[in-house]
């Protein structure tokens, strides 16, 4: 049972999160599939599969490989495109009582801007009709699995600044920028996002990694490298969240390897306002409901009445 005696809520740029458990982009589809297994409306939020302006087929060949306590993926941003999302997937989100975050990727600066404009236009139309729109854009400048765009924008601060500035100008929706652990200086990157008017930063995206098939004498991935996620990256993610949270005043959305309530507490203590959960969905199909319940239990046990008491305490 979920206890009502503890306060797990958080707010980012006016967006309400009933609890800090948000499902991470690319690991939760648009929520429909997991919605058949449990009430995804109990989640703090959902970040949808990363979208690009045009539909994308993603990468060929092996797309996933397990490592010691981690997962390498090379999906390559397969997605239906922004327009198909707005017409086909958003109606499902409309009915959910959870924060709705659209994760936006791109190949070029123009793609990012046009994508953000489409989402903004849809939100405007919905506002006129009194319907719920997306609550927040999460700008993905950090996908390591696509050749153009993605990570190319996420490594160097000046390149990232251009994208953040252009997208900020294109939308008035709350904007989180998702940072890459492969950035040259992630704290500097986060400061740039704050200066450019981002409402939050999300981190971390996957860490660029590799796996070689020694018999075939080649990388198992057609794209050579792939993105590492899961428990293996948690210490790195936690350190980066801590580092960034001390350098910016905007909220930090923390993620990387979370598989338990105590993992969530660690990220909150490091300074995260809410967290995201990715790979754990593949280890436990009811990850969301498990974590929400465990978190309440932990808070009761530890006599934590509100997450605000421990946020950034370390």
């Amino acid at each position: 049972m979920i206890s009502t005696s503890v306060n797990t809520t958080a707010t980012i740029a006016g967006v309400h999160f009933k609890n800090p458990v948000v499902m991470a982009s690319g690991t939760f589809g648009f929520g429909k599939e997991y919605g058949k297994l449990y009430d995804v409306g109990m989640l703090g939020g959902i970040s949808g599969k990363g979208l690009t302006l045009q539909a994308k087929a993603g990468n060929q060949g092996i797309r996933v490989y397990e490592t010691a306590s981690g997962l390498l993926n090379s999906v390559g941003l397969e997605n239906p495109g922004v327009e198909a999302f707005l017409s086909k997937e958003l109606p499902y989100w409309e009915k959910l009582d959870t924060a709705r975050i659209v994760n936006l990727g791109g190949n070029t600066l123009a793609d990012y801007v046009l994508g953000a404009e489409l989402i903004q236009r849809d939100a405007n139309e919905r506002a006129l009709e009194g319907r719920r729109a997306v609550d927040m854009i999460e700008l993905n400048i950090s996908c390591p699995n696509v050749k153009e765009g993605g990570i190319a924008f996420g490594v160097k601060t000046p390149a990232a600044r251009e994208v953040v500035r252009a997208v900020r100008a294109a939308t008035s929706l709350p904007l989180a920028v998702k940072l890459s652990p492969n950035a040259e200086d992630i704290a500097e990157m986060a400061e740039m996002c704050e200066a450019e008017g981002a409402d939050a930063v999300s981190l971390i995206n996957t860490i660029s990694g590799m796996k070689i098939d020694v018999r075939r004498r080649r990388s198992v991935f057609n794209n050579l490298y792939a993105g590492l996620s899961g428990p293996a990256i948690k210490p790195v993610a936690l350190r980066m969240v801590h580092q960034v949270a001390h350098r910016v005043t905007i909220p930090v959305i923390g993620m990387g390897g979370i598989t338990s309530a105590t993992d969530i507490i660690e990220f909150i203590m490091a300074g995260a306002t809410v967290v995201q959960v990715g790979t754990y969905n593949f280890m436990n199909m009811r990850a969301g409901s498990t974590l929400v319940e465990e978190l309440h239990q932990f808070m009761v046990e530890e006599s934590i009445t509100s997450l605000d008491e421990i946020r950034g305490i370390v």
Partner: protein
Amino acid sequence: MATVISNERLANGVYHLRVEGEHGGKMGQFYMLRAWGAYPLLSRPLSIHQVNDDGVEFLYHVVGEGTEIFAGLTPGDPIQLEGPFGNGFPEVEGKVALIGGGIGIAPLYYCARQLPDSDVYLGFSREAFRTEAFRPLAAELTVDVGGLILNSVDFDSYDHIFVCGPQPMLKAAQMKGAAAAAGGRSPKVYLSLENRMACGIGACLVCSVSCRDGQRKACTDGPVFLAEEVVFHD
């Protein structure tokens, strides 16, 4: 959590696992299984071999870390099961051939039980297993060890052909299906694919299959596809 009823070794590296509980499913569907905690990270997809009143059965081949753990299970052990998932083979009428290669025979046993007048073709590279279980179910049973089982099948004599086996065999079946279609009586050929999976339910796009009309998901649009729809890459 479910409980292992039995886990019998049938041949070198091949096991027959029976799990207790009310677990339904259609022919060709699969479950995501794990018999461990956090590691290995992912659950393993296994096809339904048989559904009974008291549980569900699987036939699996030990290839790596996960199936190695399955092989060590003994009666009474707990095992986690999610499913059934996937579309499965269609319910069909007419003359049916079931063609299995190696561990690919796993889902065909459940098919044979439901399509009792089918001709069954089972091919193995080294050692045959579980073939006798098929004998009372099949109109005709052909077993081949060391050859190419597809060479024994006249595609023109069937209305529907279900195939499960290694990728080269699936590709070859696709080509034979296309040749038969060009020749007149065209059997509908269905292939059960074995793409790597992470979520198993359509959310992660890790299991993507290239199809003529675009990308599809092996876990929800498949694992069974009409042969003519699939585009093989390597």
